[in-house]
């Protein structure tokens, strides 16, 4: 039941004239599905980086305020 159905790789690409449709679908699926995994990961990373920057800024401000107090 399970045997490779095409005689050659060219045959596999060509698919009896339907290759352009089948492989276009495969390409579109690859693009969309990859984007669905990569995009949320990248966005989550940038969000974490954003939180880090906010924290760093807050700390700097606090340090500055303390310095201003000690100068008084």
């Amino acid at each position, binding site marked *: 039941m399970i045997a490779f159905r095409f005689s050659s790789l060219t045959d596999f690409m060509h698919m009896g004239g339907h290759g352009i449709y089948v492989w276009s679908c495969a390409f*579109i699926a690859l693009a969309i599905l990859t984007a669905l995994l990569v995009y949320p990961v990248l966005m989550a990373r940038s969000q974490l980086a954003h*939180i880090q920057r906010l924290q760093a800024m807050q700390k700097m401000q606090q340090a500055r305020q303390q310095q201003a107090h000690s100068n008084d």
Partner: protein
Amino acid sequence: MSWQWFHRLGSPRWFYEKTDRWLKWLAPLSIVLMLVGISWGFGFAPIDSKQGDSYRIIFIHMPAAALALVGYYIMAIAGAVGLIWRMKLPFMVMKSAAPIGAALTVLTLATGSLWGHPTWGTFWEWDARNIFMLVLLFLYAGIVVLAQVYPSRDAADKACAILALVGTINVPIIYKSVDWWYSLHQPASIKLTGSASIHPSMLYPLLLCILAYYCFYSTALILYTRREILLREARTSWVIQLAQTRLARRKANVTGEGL
């Protein structure tokens, strides 16, 4: 009866920490299943006697369509749970399901169009199923947009949940459209009741592809929800802690931490 588990299920922090471990096997599993299923369908399943090799698009098209429909129910149910129990996490799941569903609907329409040209002789036909699939895309897109336009997050969540619930009427229409109207679409190959009208040599790779899409959908939904959690819980101490440990780990040049 203890309802503790139910409320824990509604805690974004619990979800974030739990899914950290789930993703480690779920993400590779969905990629492997997808590769095996598609390769089997493309290279090893027999050729269709009527449609030739163009039928192989079914291994991408049909599971994508199935998950676009199932995903709509997941989104609507999450919205309903959020409305009824006023929990935070279900709304985040609902909002995350919208772009994934929209992408899968686009994939379904695009692959269907590429399948239609050699089989029906046209890229697009105003066929009942095509029309309602397009309506599904507009519903998903509407929820994506609606989630952005409200100044108040509570109002946006409620509006999205209501739109999602109203739109559920569309899902059974799509499912039954090939039986209700004369259609270019072939009737269902796999039925919940009764035997499948498709040979096992094509059925098994198709079932594997469906399983792969389910795993993939879960992975994507978890990833999108985690991103939404980080956005909405940015001021909570545990997220700030998380951001700092991540920074510290990167400084120590340790790679391979999960997001």
